[in-house]
């Protein structure tokens, strides 16, 4: 039998692993591929590291990371946000162990090397007897800042590469999705609030974003919750949170005709994409008749004017994915960050945002929605996590060397703005688009 399937021995060459409409299974499990991804994707791309509202005051810090590297996002005393390697220049220990906090300086637990909140070395004991060339004033003897740092409307990104496209160029037309997140706040500002979910699975990091705009999966993956919610009596007492959850589960059961007629998928350079036009505000949780939404709309109109408020609420981008590891959605102010741990181990942190100037009841809806969509014990997410684990368990089989990502391949269309879109939301164009970006990073052999 002749075949163009590379053997596993040859599988580490990235350009051999991506073909039109299919990818080789080893890129979800091969440790050599994973190591190269950490170097060429997570070591170069702009990676979301946090939101400025997490560090409102000088000295505030929050632990974050890029790939396997622990970082610290901190508000320096001059008011600027700094992203530092959370590592002591002396013996390499992680300096700050708390997930968040407030400090006037950072002191390493090992020998007391102490750093300013911008990472510069402040003091260290016994600075004598070092070999020639050792200079405590050397800027490299620091909790080093990341190579590049930038933010877009309060969303802070870092890159470990000194060279590369700027953040705005990297995001391209996806900046509109961030605008949508922020503009919905009557006061024009949002803040991280309401705790964090951290869920884990034994599967590759790429699976997560590949699932978030997958309109063809809910009817199967979520069948148990769709049917359980469908059979639920609406006469049983609820404090509102169960009602929101059950409505979302029922929505997941929309037939293919819905996904093929009312929902679209857009794909942009650098691997980004969004699912659009899914929830229209008149029929989902932010129902126009809902008194909470009415109060919120009034608050938005009061601050922005009726016409601007209408424009803001007309944007109907559902999940926006920023390659390689960020996804967010504006209707319920959710944001998810995917952290690769190992080829077959991933953790995902999910955050909520409060719309400043909105009635507090809006944030309660955000929380109820987060519980059902991102909750570790949710009736929905648990079946997604099981699916990632099943892929993890199955993908080491050599039965299916090539995995299919070709759905809708023949009907991708040019969107006229540098992007492309699928014929409808069931297209896997956004996965093919991520692998276009993957291939670009992975075959770029510059040091």
């Amino acid at each position, binding site marked *: 039998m002749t075949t163009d399937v590379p053997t596993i021995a040859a599988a580490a060459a990235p350009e051999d692993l991506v073909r039109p409409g299919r990818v080789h299974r080893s890129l979800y499990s091969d440790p050599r591929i994973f190591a190269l991804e950490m170097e060429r994707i997570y070591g170069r791309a702009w990676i979301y590291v946090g939101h400025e509202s997490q560090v409102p005051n000088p000295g505030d810090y929050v632990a974050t990371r890029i790939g396997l590297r622990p970082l610290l996002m901190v508000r320096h005393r001059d008011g600027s946000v700094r992203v530092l390697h959370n590592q002591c220049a002396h013996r390499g220990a992680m300096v700050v162990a708390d997930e968040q906090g407030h400090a006037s300086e950072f002191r390493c637990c090992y020998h007391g090397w102490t750093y300013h909140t911008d990472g510069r070395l402040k003091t260290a004991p016994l600075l004598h007897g070092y070999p020639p060339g050792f200079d405590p004033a050397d800027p490299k003897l620091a909790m080093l800042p990341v190579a590049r740092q930038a933010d877009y409307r309060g969303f802070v990104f870092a890159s470990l590469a000194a060279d590369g496209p700027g953040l705005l160029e990297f995001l391209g037309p996806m900046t509109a999705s961030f605008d949508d997140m922020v503009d919905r706040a009557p006061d024009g500002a949002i803040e991280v609030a309401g705790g964090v979910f951290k869920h884990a699975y034994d599967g590759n990091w790429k699976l997560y974003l590949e699932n978030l705009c997958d309109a063809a999966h809910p009817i199967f993956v979520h069948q148990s919750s769709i049917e359980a919610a469908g059979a639920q009596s609406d006469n049983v*007492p609820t404090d*509102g949170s169960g009602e929101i959850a059950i409505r979302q589960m029922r929505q997941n059961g929309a037939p293919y005709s819905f996904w093929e007629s009312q929902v679209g998928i857009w794909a942009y350079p650098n691997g980004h994409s969004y699912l659009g036009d899914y929830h229209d505000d008149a029929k989902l949780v932010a129902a126009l008749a809902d008194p909470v939404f009415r109060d919120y709309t009034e608050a938005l109109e009061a601050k922005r004017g009726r016409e601007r408020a209408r424009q803001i609420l007309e944007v109907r981008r559902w999940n926006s994915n920023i390659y390689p590891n960020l996804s967010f959605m504006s209707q319920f102010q959710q944001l998810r960050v995917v952290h690769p741990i190992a080829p077959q181990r991933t953790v995902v942190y999910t955050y909520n945002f409060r719309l400043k100037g909105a009635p507090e009841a809006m944030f*309660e809806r955000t929380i109820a929605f987060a519980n059902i969509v991102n909750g570790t014990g949710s009736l929905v997410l648990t079946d997604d996590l099981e699916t990632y684990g099943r892929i993890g368990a199955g993908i080491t089989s050599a039965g299916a060397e090539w995995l299919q990502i070709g759905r809708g391949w023949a009907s991708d269309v040019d969107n006229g703005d540098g992007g492309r879109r699928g014929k409808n939301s069931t297209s896997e164009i956004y996965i093919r688009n991520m692998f276009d970006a993957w291939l670009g990073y992975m075959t770029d052999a510059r040091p």
Partner: protein
Amino acid sequence: MSHAAAPDLAEAERFLQHEARLLDEARFEDWLALFTADAWYWVPSQPDQTSPRDTVSLIYDDRRLLETRVRRLRNPHLHAQQPPARASRIVANVTIDEAQAGAAVVRSKLLMVEYRRNRQRLFAGTCRHRLVRAADGLRIAWKRVDLVDCDAELEGLLLPF
């Protein structure tokens, strides 16, 4: 009912052990029947969490969602329970936090071992039940479970605690 006696320690302990047995035996509908018609069941995501409304929760079910949760546990397409998990729960250190006419808030420790597909997980935490007396026995008006690792990176939670 307002003149009914508050459950005492022995009665509360028997009730909690009965509840744990129903769950161990996967008698989820019988477990649901222990709750009052407007009950809630809460597993916070943060230590010392004060509200399920302003902060996310590993589980926060009002009565309506709790019914849906139990119904889903029986669904043949619940992939995350193929094969189903088994669990063994130990309830201990039971104390009465507050007693009123016909009701009490009962505190206990839970140690639960969950097994599925060659993997065993250990959950530990503090439970608080508000138990109220009904005509035919005690009911759970609310239940809160504070896991010691509630803010850890966790895999999916399927079985009730």
